[in-house]
Structure formats: structure tokens, C-alpha cells
């Protein structure tokens, strides 16, 4: 429980103007010498940290007493298609194991479905201490009401401290529903996670639609809930020795009654998924015309990779939305990515910063992409790319 207290007596027009300027969300206004904070406030607290001292204060009152020790374990929701486990689940179990080293908490996996015990056992190989399974024919397909019931039942019985869900379409539909039922927080699309000794999960993500990272905590609520996208963390290697166990949990008949009726399920044809690519050439707004896209595609092809892009190039119709890298596109983790004419906004970088080798081509010395690149090539793409293509083509001819 906390609120902003405005010490109106300390306000003068100059301070009011300064505070108005500091607020990135235009939430501070003043009228007749009184300062107001509107609903636009995002609690970034810049007004307290950067504003004139003492004018705005954060007042914390009556602590809710939360016994953090009652909540133990880092749980991962298992995403699967008829028992075939999505890799994001393994990535999250790997991360959970790392985080668990700080608190000594166990690592859990939760799996819902029908006839899935065998598949669930595979998760033990990746270091889950316990895999909790709800195995019912009613759970064969994703029905939000039943999945929310089972997920909540798991939370009520097991009381995990932190929960991670893959940010797939399914995960994004389910996680907020469960978080709301538990009246707890949810942080979407975390790009970094850390653990405090008191079991507070530190959730880091790009935020506020600008070039800034936000560090978010859920200090007074359990469980702590976050979603993480595919390819943000690495897949752990399976363990040789493991001693986790499978635990079957049960639901009451009324928890298995759904209002949803599935009429048909049509598998989507498998498309190029840039998330899976090992080599990517990504284009940005440095490309001056649609014709330049051909250069990018040729380079990608010569290297045996795929082409991708930033959001503006999807918006102007040069690329299919599935080729977009970034916060509102895909996350990629290739062995090599060459970025061409890309500035390196946090939203873009959030989708590719974990790539093994990043070569950035940009003519502006101070482009932020050079802060994440392993190799920065400062020059004009129109000069570099055609010559590079020639060199690679020449090489391939020699090889013939």
C-alpha cells in the first residue's frame, strides 16, 4: 500500500514547471499553484528521484503481512502439443534451476493434458524436482476455464513462490486469467530474471514504449507471475543423474465442467520461423527502397540463412509480419545475425540480444545497435552490401 503525497506548500511555479517536464507521461499538472498527479501516472518515480527534493513523497502505509516462507518453489508451466513439449518450457526450467540456486527453492513443472504422464516424465531429465500433472480427458484441448481451474488448484495446493509461463498465444491467454484469479501481479515478456535472497523475483523488461528497461518486483504478493518468450533463455542440457518425481494432482468434477466447445482444430502449415533460424540477415529503415530488400534476401540466401526486419519495414509492407524481430515480433537466438541499417531500439534489441554473433552495419557512429554488437561496421550499407555480395559470390564460383 503506497501513495504519492504532494507537499503543496513547497511548490512554486518554477518547481511545478520542472516536475511537469520530468514526468514522461504528462501526468503532472498544476492549477492555481496546486500540483495534481493524474491517472496517466505510471509510478516511474522520476518525479521523486529527479525532482526538487521533498515536494513529492512516496508514502507507504500499513504493510500487508505476507509470510514469504509459506510460498516455496519456482514453477514452470509446460506448454505442449499432445505431449510434444515446446522448447520454451525447457528454457524456462533451465532458468528456474539457476534462480533456485539463490534461495534453495525446488524447481517445479506443471503439466495439464490428457494421457501425458510419459511426456511429463521427460521434464525430470531437465532438472525439475517435481512435475505436477493433471491428466484428464477433459484437458486434452486448451479450454481456458478448465486450464485456469487446474492452474489455480495447483497454486492453492503447492503454493509456489514464482511462476514462469512461456509467452506463446496460449500462455498469454492463460497467464493473465490465472494471475487475476490469484489477485497477483503479472509481468509480460521479461527479458531478464534474477532472484533475491528473500525470494523476490526481479523481472526486467523493456518498458514505457521508450528506450528504457524497467526492473519490476512483486514484493507483497505471491505467487509472482511472469511470461517469457521463446529463445530468450538457453536450452539446458539434459542431466545424466536426476531424482525428481512425478506427482499426480486431482480436480473435482465441477472443476472439469467447461462452457467452451471446440468445434474444429486445424493444424497450421509449418512456416519459416525466424526463431529457429541459425543465420539471419535483418534489415531496417536504413534501406532506402523496396528494391534493396532483394540485396538483403540474396545475402541471407548466400549465407544459408533467412531474412528478417524491424517493425517499420513491416508497417510499410516490405516484409511479412512473421519476419519481424523484437518485442512485438519474434525473439531470435541465431549463431549469426547481421543487422543492416538498424538503429537498435530496445524493442528490437530485446528480440535478438542473445544471439551468438552480432555484426551490425550502420553509418551512424553512435547508433545504439553498436552497444550490443560484437562487431560494429560503421559505413554506408549501399556501398558495403553489394561489394560483400560480390566477394561471397566470387568465392562460391571459385569453389565450383
Amino acid at each position, binding site marked *: *500500500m*503506497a*501513495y504519492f503525497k504532494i507537499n503543496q506548500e513547497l511548490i512554486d511555479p518554477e518547481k511545478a514547471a520542472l516536475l511537469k*517536464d520530468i514526468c514522461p507521461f504528462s501526468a503532472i499538472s498544476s492549477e492555481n499553484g496546486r500540483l495534481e498527479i*493524474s*491517472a*496517466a*501516472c505510471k509510478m*516511474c518515480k*522520476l518525479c521523486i528521484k*529527479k525532482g526538487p527534493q521533498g515536494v513529492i513523497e512516496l508514502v507507504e502505509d500499513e504493510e500487508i503481512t505476507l509470510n514469504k516462507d509459506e510460498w516455496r518453489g519456482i514453477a514452470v508451466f509446460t506448454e505442449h502439443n499432445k505431449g510434444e513439449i515446446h522448447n520454451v518450457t525447457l528454457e524456462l526450467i533451465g532458468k528456474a534451476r539457476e534462480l533456485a540456486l539463490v534461495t534453495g527453492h525446488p524447481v517445479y513443472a506443471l503439466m495439464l493434458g490428457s494421457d501425458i504422464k510419459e511426456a511429463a516424465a521427460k521434464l525430470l531429465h531437465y532438472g525439475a524436482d517435481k512435475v505436477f500433472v493433471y491428466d484428464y480427458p477433459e484437458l486434452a*484441448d486448451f479450454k481456458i*476455464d478448465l486450464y485456469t481451474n487446474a492452474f489455480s488448484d495447483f497454486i492453492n495446493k503447492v503454493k509456489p513462490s514464482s511462476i514462469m509461463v512461456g509467452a*506463446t*498465444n*496460449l500462455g498469454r*491467454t492463460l497467464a*493473465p486469467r490465472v494471475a*487475476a*484469479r490469484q489477485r*497477483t*501481479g*503479472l509481468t*509480460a*515478456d521479461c527479458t531478464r530474471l534474477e532472484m533475491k535472497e528473500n525470494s523476490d523475483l526481479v523481472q526486467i523488461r523493456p*518498458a514505457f*514504449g*521508450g528506450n*528504457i528497461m524497467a*526492473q519490476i518486483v*512483486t514484493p507483497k504478493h505471491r505467487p509472482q507471475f511472469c511470461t517469457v518468450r521463446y529463445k530468450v533463455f538457453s536450452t539446458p542440457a539434459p542431466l545424466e543423474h536426476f531424482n525428481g518425481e512425478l506427482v499426480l494432482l486431482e480436480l473435482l468434477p465441477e472443476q472439469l465442467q467447461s*462452457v*467452451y*466447445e*471446440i*468445434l474444429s*482444430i486445424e493444424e*497450421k502449415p509449418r512456416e519459416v520461423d525466424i526463431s529457429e533460424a541459425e*543465420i539471419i540477415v535483418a534489415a531496417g529503415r536504413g534501406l532506402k527502397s523496396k528494391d534493396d530488400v532483394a540485396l538483403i534476401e540474396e545475402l541471407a540466401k*548466400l*549465407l544459408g540463412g533467412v531474412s528478417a526486419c524491424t517493425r517499420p519495414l513491416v508497417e510499410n509492407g516490405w516484409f511479412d509480419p512473421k519476419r519481424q524481430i523484437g518485442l*512485438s515480433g519474434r525473439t531470435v537466438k541465431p549463431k549469426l545475425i*547481421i543487422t543492416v541499417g538498424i538503429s537498435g*531500439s530496445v524493442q528490437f534489441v530485446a528480440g535478438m540480444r542473445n544471439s551468438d554473433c552480432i*555484426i551490425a*552495419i550502420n553509418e551512424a557512429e553512435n547508433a*545504439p545497435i553498436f*552497444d550490443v*554488437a*560484437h*562487431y*560494429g*561496421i*560503421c*559505413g554506408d550499407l549501399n*556501398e*558495403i552490401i553489394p*561489394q560483400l555480395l560480390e566477394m*561471397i559470390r566470387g*568465392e562460391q564460383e571459385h569453389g565450383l
Partner: protein
Amino acid sequence: MDIIVCIKQVPGTTNVEVDPLTGVLIRDGVESKLNPYDLFALELAMQLNAADGGQTSVISMGPPQAGAVVREAIFMGAVGGKVVSDRRFAGADVLATSYTLSQGLRKMADFDLLICGKQTTDGDTGQVGAEIAEFLGLPHIGNVLAVEEIKNREIVVKVNLDSSIVRQKLPLPCLICTDGDINTPRLPSYRRKKEFNEASLVFISLEDFDDKDESHYGLSGSPTQVERIFPPEKNQEKQMFHGSGTELAANVYALLHEQKFVD
């Protein structure tokens, strides 16, 4: 079919930057706009009204300026809208935002269908719709590509899941979140603009809610807290190359060769 669409006002530009060292704000153009994803939700609502009758209203939570997006929705075809605005809502995270909207929705006329957009462009990622549904005790479904049929108080929707397209039926009233780009939103109409009646835009605040307990809203009602904000860290070990186009092309080629991406 009476429909309510949840719409949000978002910054018109993506370039709101804060210099974390000086706290100075780098703003280029601060104008706001209607969240583009909510336009698809609005268009879907208009199309459903055209096919099955009924009318669409909108709701938006935000500062008083958010009235602008409600007006825009009315120019597009909504019959009216409410802005939920109160400084005690300041600092609301997903949970508190959804709770506030659910309280506001309880004060609106009865509806058959609630529609939310896929996500907002100012940072969040499509969680508010599902949480509103939970607070209202309604079934919900995300990533809706199309509404195929409405009959006998049931709706059939086509849903974009990760590896499949699923058609499913759920009872009304319910909440759906649209997928991106599912239709071509209409433009605001000039005639509707001229006929606009101020009374169709209503502001409501905490005073109007059933639950007036301040601690359930704004920062107090938000389980998540922003501990700090910071610029992304830099990679110190990068290697920079300068020179002519030919030299740089050769540098890239050498790097690719060294790492066996070309042989």
C-alpha cells in the same frame, strides 16, 4: 448484440525517452492517439452491429484527455462512451487497471459482448482483456481472427493458437480479444463528427463505482512495482571497423570467413 469495446489512448510516438542520468525528458512529439490494435476491435464491433443489429459503446481508462479517443470511436460509429478517470487510479499495473475497468463496466448498460484489442502499443502485451474477464466472471478468448456465427446466445469464433487455428463456441455474454490486422478499420465519419453530442461522452470516477475502497486502485491496488528504470547495458568488448565501403565489405567478409559462415 450490444457491444462494449475497451479502447486506450497511447502516445502518438514511440520515442519517449528519459535520460536516466539527468532525468531530463527527450520528447519528440507528445501527441496521443487511439491504440491502433483497438481499431480492429472497434471495426469488428461495427461489422457485428451491421449484421445482427444492436449498438456499440466504448470505455477507456486514463487521464481526462482520453476523452479524445472516445470521441474518435464515436465518430467511427460507437453510440457513446465512458472515460474512467480519477487521480486515485494513478500508477495502476495490469491487475489494478483491469479491476478498475471491470468496475467501470459494471456501471455501463448491459452488454452481450465485450471486445478488447490484442495489445497496447505503449508497452503492455495483451493481458488486460483476460483479467477484466476474470474480474467480471465471464468466459473469454484471445487472438480472435473472426466471429463466424452468433446464435441462441452463443458465439462461434475462429482463434489463432500457436500451431493451430481453432474454432470454438462459447456462451454470451463473454469477452473476446481480437488478433492483429483482422480487418480494415473504417475512418471517422465527417457527418458523425458534425452531429456529435457532448452528452454521449461521460466521465466517471471512483465515486461512481460499487467498490469505493481506494486501496484497490492505482498504486495501492498494484501488486507489481517498478523498482528502477535504467538504460540497456552496453557490450564493452565490441570491435569497431571504419573505412571505405570496399574496406568494410572486406572486413565483414573476413569475419564471416574466420567464423566459417562462408568457406
